[in-house]
C-alpha cells in the first residue's frame, strides 16, 4: 500500500523526469555525472562521489598485444588480477601507488600432471592465501593452482544425476569461501550456484531464484496443445550472471536476465545476497527497487532496464553494482538506499563501452571494460569519503561524529535525502528526539519519524503530567459542580418553604 501510493505519487513526476533527464544525458560531462533519486523518484544531481584516478590499458602495463574482451577481475590485498579472456591469459598486477598500477607477471600456462596446461577462454579468477582458482571455461574445468603456477587439482563437471550430463560444463564465474569451497556459475545452468567441497566433490546446487509465473500464463499453458506449449516460455529460475563473496562469507549475485515488466511486478531480483542456506537476505528498505535506474529512458540508442552485470561489496555492507547497458555504477547502503549513481557510455575517462567487471580496493573502485579493453581506477572524492565516514562512524557507535559528517555532506549536497535521514538517526541515538523528528519529516521517513515521535511523546507526557491531570480534572469536575449548583438552585427555587 505504501509502495503503491509512492508509485502513483511519483508516476506523474516520472514522465516529467524522463523528459528532463534526456537532454542532460547528452551533455553529461559538465553536469549530471553523479545523481541520486529522492523520495519522489526525482533525479537529484549531486557532486561526484568518485573521480577517475587513472585508466589503464595493456600499453600502460608494457604489454605488446592489447587486452581482448577481458571478463574477470579480482583484487587480493594490493594485487589485481585481470582475466584476459580471448588472449587466454591472466595478468597479475600490483598497485604501487595511489594512481599507479604495475604488471607483476603474465600467466599463460602452468606446470603439473595434467593434459592441458594452458587456458581456453578463462572467464574468472579467485585468489586466496595460497592458491589461484581459475574458471577455465572452454576447457570445462575450474583450476586450482599454487601461486608458483603448479597444478593442484581441478573441479570438473559434476557426475551427479542432478546435473544434465548431455550438457557441456562451462564454468563462467567463481568465488571461494574461507574454507576453500568453490561456488561456480556455469553457462546454461539455472538451478543455482554449483557448490564443490574443497576436495573437489560436487555438493549440490544452492540459491536458485524462485521460479515465478503469472496466473494467466498458467491458464494458457493448461489449455495449450503440446506444440504450442513448446513454443511458450518455460517457468524456470533465472540464470545468475555474476557472483561476489563478501568478507562475512555472504554471496552477492546479480542477473541481467531481467525485463522492465518483471522488475515492476517484483518477480525478479536483479541483486540478491545469499546466506549459506542459499536464501536471499538482502535488505530492501529503500524507497526504490534495487535495480539500477528507476526511470528508464530510451534515448541515445539505449533501452530497457539496467543490466547489472557485476557487484562488489565493501566491508561496511554497502555495495556497488555495475550496469552493462548504460555503463553506470550504482552504490547502495546496507539498507538498500541508493547512495549514488554515476558513469555513462562513452570514450572519455569515467565512461564505459561495455563494462564487464567491478572490484574494490578499500573504498577505491576498479572497473574492467570488455570492449574498451581498459581498467579504470576510481577514488572517492571528499564528498564520497564523507558519506562513507558518516556511515562507518554510525556503525561504530560514534553518533555525534556521524552527525557532524552528515552535516558536512549536506553542506556539499543539500538534495541528499540520506544525509537528512542520517542526521535524524544520529540525533535519535543521541536522544535528541524533537530535532530528529524534523529531519525525518523533511525526507518523508515515517518509520524513523514514528520512532523518534514515540520517545518524544513519552517525554512530553512525563514532563507535563501535572498539567494533563489538572486539565482532565477541570474538564470532568467543572460540569459536575455546575450541575450540582444548578440542581441546588432548582431545588431552592421549587422548595415549598420559599414559595410565597
Amino acid at each position, binding site marked *: 500500500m505504501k509502495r503503491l501510493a509512492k508509485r502513483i*505519487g511519483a508516476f*506523474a*513526476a516520472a514522465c516529467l523526469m524522463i523528459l528532463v533527464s534526456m537532454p542532460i544525458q547528452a551533455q553529461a560531462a559538465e553536469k549530471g555525472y553523479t545523481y541520486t533519486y529522492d523520495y519522489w523518484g526525482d533525479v537529484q544531481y549531486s557532486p561526484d562521489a568518485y573521480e577517475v584516478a587513472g585508466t589503464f590499458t595493456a600499453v600502460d602495463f608494457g604489454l605488446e598485444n592489447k587486452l581482448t574482451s577481458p571478463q574477470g577481475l579480482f583484487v587480493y590485498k594490493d594485487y589485481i588480477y585481470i582475466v584476459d579472456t580471448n588472449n587466454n591469459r591472466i595478468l597479475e598486477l600490483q598497485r604501487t601507488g595511489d594512481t599507479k598500477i604495475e604488471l607483476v607477471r603474465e600467466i599463460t600456462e602452468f606446470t603439473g600432471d595434467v593434459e592441458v596446461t594452458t587456458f581456453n577462454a578463462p572467464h574468472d579468477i579467485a585468489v586466496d592465501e595460497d592458491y589461484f582458482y581459475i574458471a577455465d571455461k572452454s576447457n570445462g574445468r575450474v583450476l586450482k593452482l599454487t601461486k608458483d603456477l603448479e597444478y593442484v587439482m581441478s573441479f570438473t563437471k559434476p557426475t551427479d544425476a542432478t546435473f544434465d550430463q548431455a550438457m557441456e560444463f562451462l564454468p563462467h564465474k567463481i568465488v571461494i569461501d574461507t574454507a576453500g569451497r568453490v561456488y561456480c556459475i556455469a553457462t546454461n545452468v539455472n538451478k543455482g550456484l554449483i557448490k564443490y567441497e574443497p576436495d573437489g566433490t560436487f555438493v549440490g546446487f544452492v540459491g536458485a531464484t524462485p521460479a515465478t509465473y503469472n496466473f494467466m500464463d498458467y491458464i494458457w499453458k493448461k489449455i495449450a496443445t503440446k506444440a504450442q506449449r513448446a513454443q511458450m516460455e518455460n517457468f524456470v529460475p533465472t540464470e545468475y550472471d555474476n557472483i561476489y563473496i563478501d568478507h562475512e562469507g555472504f554471496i552477492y549475485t546479480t542477473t541481467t536476465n531481467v525485463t522492465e515488466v518483471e522488475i515492476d511486478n517484483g518477480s525478479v531480483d536483479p541483486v540478491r545476497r545469499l546466506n549459506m542456506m542459499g536464501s536471499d537476505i538482502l535488505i530492501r528498505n529503500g524507497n526504490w527497487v534495487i535495480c539500477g535506474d528507476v526511470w528508464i529512458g530510451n534515448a541515445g540508442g539505449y533501452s530497457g532496464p539496467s543490466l547489472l552485470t557485476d557487484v562488489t561489496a565493501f566491508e561496511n555492507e554497502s555495495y556497488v553494482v555495475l550496469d552493462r547497458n548504460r555503463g553506470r555504477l550504482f552504490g547502495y547502503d546496507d539498507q538498500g538506499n541508493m547512495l549514488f549513481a554515476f558513469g555513462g557510455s562513452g570514450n572519455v575517462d569515467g565512461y564505459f563501452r561495455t563494462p564487464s567487471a567491478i572490484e574494490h580496493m578499500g573504498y577505491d573502485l576498479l572497473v574492467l571494460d570488455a570492449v574498451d579493453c581498459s581498467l579504470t581506477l576510481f577514488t572517492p572524492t571528499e564528498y564520497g569519503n564523507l558519506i562513507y565516514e558518516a556511515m562507518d562512524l554510525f556503525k561504530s557507535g560514534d553518533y555525534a561524529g556521524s552527525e557532524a559528517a552528515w552535516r558536512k555532506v549536506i553542506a556539499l549536497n543539500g538534495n541528499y535525502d540520506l544525509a537528512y535521514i542520517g542526521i535524524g538517526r544520529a540525533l535519535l541515538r543521541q536522544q535528541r528526539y524533537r530535532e530528529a523528528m524534523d529531519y525525518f519529516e523533511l525526507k*518523508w521517513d*515515517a518509520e524513523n519519524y*514514528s*520512532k523518534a515521535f514515540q520517545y518524544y511523546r513519552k517525554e512530553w507526557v512525563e514532563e507535563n503530567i501535572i498539567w494533563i491531570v489538572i486539565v482532565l480534572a477541570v474538564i470532568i469536575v467543572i460540569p459536575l459542580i455546575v450541575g450540582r449548583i444548578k440542581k441546588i438552585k432548582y431545588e431552592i427555587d421549587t422548595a415549598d418553604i420559599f414559595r410565597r
Partner: protein
Amino acid sequence: MLASLKKKETYTRYFKSFKFAFYCMTHPLDGYWDLTHEKRGSLAVANTILILTLVARIASLQFTSFIFNRVYWPEVNIFLYLGSIVFPLALWVVGNWALTTLFDGKARLPQIYMATCYAMLPYPLFQFPLIIFSNVVTVNEAEFYTLINTIVLIFCGIYIVVAMMQIHEYTMSKTILFTAFSIFAMLVIVFILLLFFSMISQGIAYFVSIVREILFRI
C-alpha cells in the same frame, strides 16, 4: 436579498437550521424528512456545510501528519483539488434530479443539493479533530486514524442515500436502485461533456486554420 440580511429573524432561522443539521446526524430518517417537508433546512446552511467541507479538505492536505498524507507539492493545484469535491457534487445533484424527476421523486433540484450537503456534515465535523489526532500518532497506531476516517466516509455515504430516500419519498430498494442509476447518469454526463468539449475545440481549430490559411494566401 440585502434587505433580508438586516432582519434579525434571518439569522435566527439560519442558526436554527444549522442546529437542525446536527439533529439530522443523530436522527437521519426523521431529520431528512423534516428537511424538505417541514422546510427546516436552508440553502444558506447547505452552502456553509459545503464551504466547511472544502476548508476541511484543504486543511487536511496541509496539516494532516505526513504519515498519512504525502503531498508532492509541485503537482498540487488547489482549484483542481477543490474541484474534485465540487464537480462530482454538481454531477450528482444534476444526475439525480434528472432521473428522479421522471420517476416520481418529490424533491426539486435545490432540495437535492441541500439534502446532499446536509448529509456531508460528518466529514468536516470529524476531519478537524482527525487532523489533530493524526499529529499525535505513530505508524503503529495509524490503523485507528484510517479506521475512523473510513467510518466517517461510509457514514457520509449512508446519510446521502438516506437523505435521498426521505426527500424523494422513495422506498429503500428504489433509492438504492436510483443511486446506482444516478452514478451511471454522472458517467454519461461526463462522457457527453468530454464529447462536447472535444467537438468545440475541433470546431474552433477548424475555423482558426481556415482563417490562417486565408491570411497566408492574401
